[in-house]
């Protein structure tokens, strides 16, 4: 049978060179592409625009890392992952890093053998209900039907919350945000629960957003951050300090507008100089160029700019900085010093 040739052709075509060796940084540089796992579609965080280009808050982290490592923010292969496939994709080496609103938990860090390299968004699980139900607190939800997006920590938090408060509820597990939204709007569930950022984004897309409220209770801590495989600390450092560079740049006042100017010559703030590589050898220590942070910041600016552009109050998502403000303005963002 001539058709057996398919096996050979496919095997050869499918065996890509990506060997998951320990030295991810060298692999990425040799490949000239960063394989970055993202969500399949979360408004504001990771989605494809009409041209098929990936956009969003999580996507910006991938691009910044690609710029720092490969000097090219477009040298990224985005791999859409679901709640089910994301960890296997990372563990098997299919992707080099995962930037997909993933909650940092003990078991993921320790048992599943991943390294969370930082937190790029502090989130928490909340509830959205229709105003006409007249509910003002999650404690009043006894007997309610709750739509949950599966594959996350959400259903565990929810079970705990209702159990602690001795309330009954009817869980409706749903695979995707779009379907959950459809069921919620049709009244097939009273409550929609997911991360507060997701709720805000979902609510923003409603035609009658004013008729829906997000209840004040936040029932869980959801520190979301990018992660890499356990055991490759050099690569972990690259991703960690790229994220830190974005955060520190906001604190230090380095923006996409002035980064080129600040990087042209050493200024009088030594920390900015070290960050931008005009002083010291931080880039070399990471195994990157001296101006790695400049490249990362030139893509779409510092953390604050990325936030404003993708999910900030001027966007349809309309999220306030809240916990995600710099520590100097009462938030939790606190980059270790570049020294």
């Amino acid at each position: 049978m001539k058709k057996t040739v398919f096996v050979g052709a496919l095997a050869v075509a499918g065996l890509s060179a990506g060997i998951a060796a320990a030295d991810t940084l060298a692999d990425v540089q040799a490949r000239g592409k960063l394989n970055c796992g993202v969500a399949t579609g979360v408004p504001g965080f990771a989605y494809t625009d009409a041209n098929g280009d990936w956009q969003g808050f999580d996507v910006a982290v991938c691009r910044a890392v690609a710029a720092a490592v490969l000097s090219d923010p477009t040298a990224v292969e985005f791999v859409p992952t679901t709640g089910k496939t994301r960890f296997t994709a990372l563990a098997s080496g299919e992707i080099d890093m995962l930037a997909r609103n993933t909650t940092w938990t003990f078991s993921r860090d320790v048992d599943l053998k991943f390294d969370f390299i930082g937190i790029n968004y502090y989130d928490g699980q909340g509830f959205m209900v229709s105003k006409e139900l007249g509910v003002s607190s999650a404690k009043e939800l006894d007997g309610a039907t709750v739509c949950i997006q599966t594959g996350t920590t959400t259903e565990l938090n929810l079970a705990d919350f209702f159990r602690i408060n001795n309330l009954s509820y009817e869980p409706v597990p749903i695979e995707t945000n779009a379907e959950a939204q459809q069921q919620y709007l049709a009244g097939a569930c009273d409550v929609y629960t997911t991360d507060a950022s997701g709720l805000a984004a979902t609510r923003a897309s409603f035609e009658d957003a004013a008729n829906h409220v997000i209840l004040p209770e936040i029932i869980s801590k959801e520190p979301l951050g990018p992660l890499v495989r356990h055991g490759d600390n050099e690569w972990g450092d690259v991703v960690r300090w790229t994220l830190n560079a974005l955060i520190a740049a906001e604190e230090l006042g380095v923006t996409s507008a002035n980064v080129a100017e600040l990087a042209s010559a050493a200024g009088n703030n030594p920390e900015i100089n070290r960050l931008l590589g005009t002083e010291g050898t931080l880039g070399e220590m990471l195994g990157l160029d001296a101006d790695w942070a400049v490249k990362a910041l030139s893509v779409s600016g510092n953390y604050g700019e990325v936030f404003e552009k993708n999910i900030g109050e001027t966007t349809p998502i309309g999220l306030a900085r809240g916990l995600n403000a710099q520590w100097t303005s009462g938030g939790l963002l606190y980059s270790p010093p570049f020294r």
Partner: protein
Amino acid sequence: MTSLTDPPKESFRLGMLIYDTRYRSLTIQVVALIGFMIFAAWLINNTLVNLAVQGKSIGFGFLSDPAGYDINQRLLDYNSQSTHWRAAFVGLLNTLLVAFLGCITATVIGVLVGILRLSNNWLVARLMTIYVEMFRNVPVLLWIVFTMAILIETLPAPRAFRGENPEASMVLFDSVAFTNRGVYLPEALFSRGLGDMPIFPDRDSPACQPTEDGSVEDGCGVFQISLDLILILAVFGAGLYGSSVIRKRADRIQNQTGDRPTTWYLRLGVVSIPTLIVLAALGFHLGYPALKGFNFQGGTYLRNSLIALWLALSLYTAAFIAEIVRAGILAISKGQTEAASALGLRSNRIMSLVILPQALRVIIPPLISNYLNLTKNSSLAIAVGYMDITGTLGGITMNQTGRELECVLLLMLVYLAISLTISAVMNWYNESVKLVER
């Protein structure tokens, strides 16, 4: 002299393993076995190496940990503190439930449509053809999500039942509510019920300590059986047995005398009166669903996910069964129909007495494989959020524990066991109805 006629003593040569047909088959088998074992060892070795690299171990201990999530439709007691084992088992029962319901409705619809497709009514036959082609040529997953969307979008939400002038109202004397969360039906209640019997109770657990009225809590035992149900089923079964005794007696009398005694009222009485007496003694009454708080409370609640899956699977499979039934009927030679009508049978009696019993033998083997398909397709429950075993063990448990290898392995074994059981049972049935050729 005998030494001359003796054939030359054959010495064994290595080449005979290949060129001698007596040994060749052995050689091939050994080679195949060795090849298979090398392949399996290669896979296992790869797996172990990879898992070691990822720092994972293989073990099923995690299944005894608390699951931590809730399941909406549970035929067994289950809460978020129950183990993953129990969650998987609850899911398995849900799989079996939808598969069982689906097989029954699919058979009923399929047989009906298959017969109607052969109807001499042009319009009906065409309509049935359209139905069959429509369902057979569109993926079942699309039908499932489509049915779910229809239920969600076209039925009223529970809040539409509220207020002075509600947009929607309950049907059948306010006893049944069709909402986009599901259907609420009246439930059977017993005011003087016998309670439940725990199976495999753990006498020391707090749930098993008798309360004031002598009953035990829900959490006692591995699962509980309703004594009321057992009693009713037992009495009803006895009634059916009595009825069949009467029928046999009537048959005997008919064979002897040619006259058949009228027995229908006797048989009806034997079946119904004891059952009614038991129901009355148990204080049977219906509990009606009523809108309280966010949802209807009371009554039996059939969730939309179950209905959508059940409906879509039955309609899809029924289209295939209809084709099988049609082919089965067409396979019966026309002479049978003609002979039957020569005997003066009406066309519906010809179908039920002559054609279908014969067609059944052609129909059953492909029917079995369609039951299997339906059961396997029920794993698509995950698309509508029905918590079958794919949704519990292969869904949330797998996501939360990250034990893909163990979960997928268990999942496959469970489905394999279900499939093999169904084929075994149906094959046994097939044997029993097979034409005994003489």
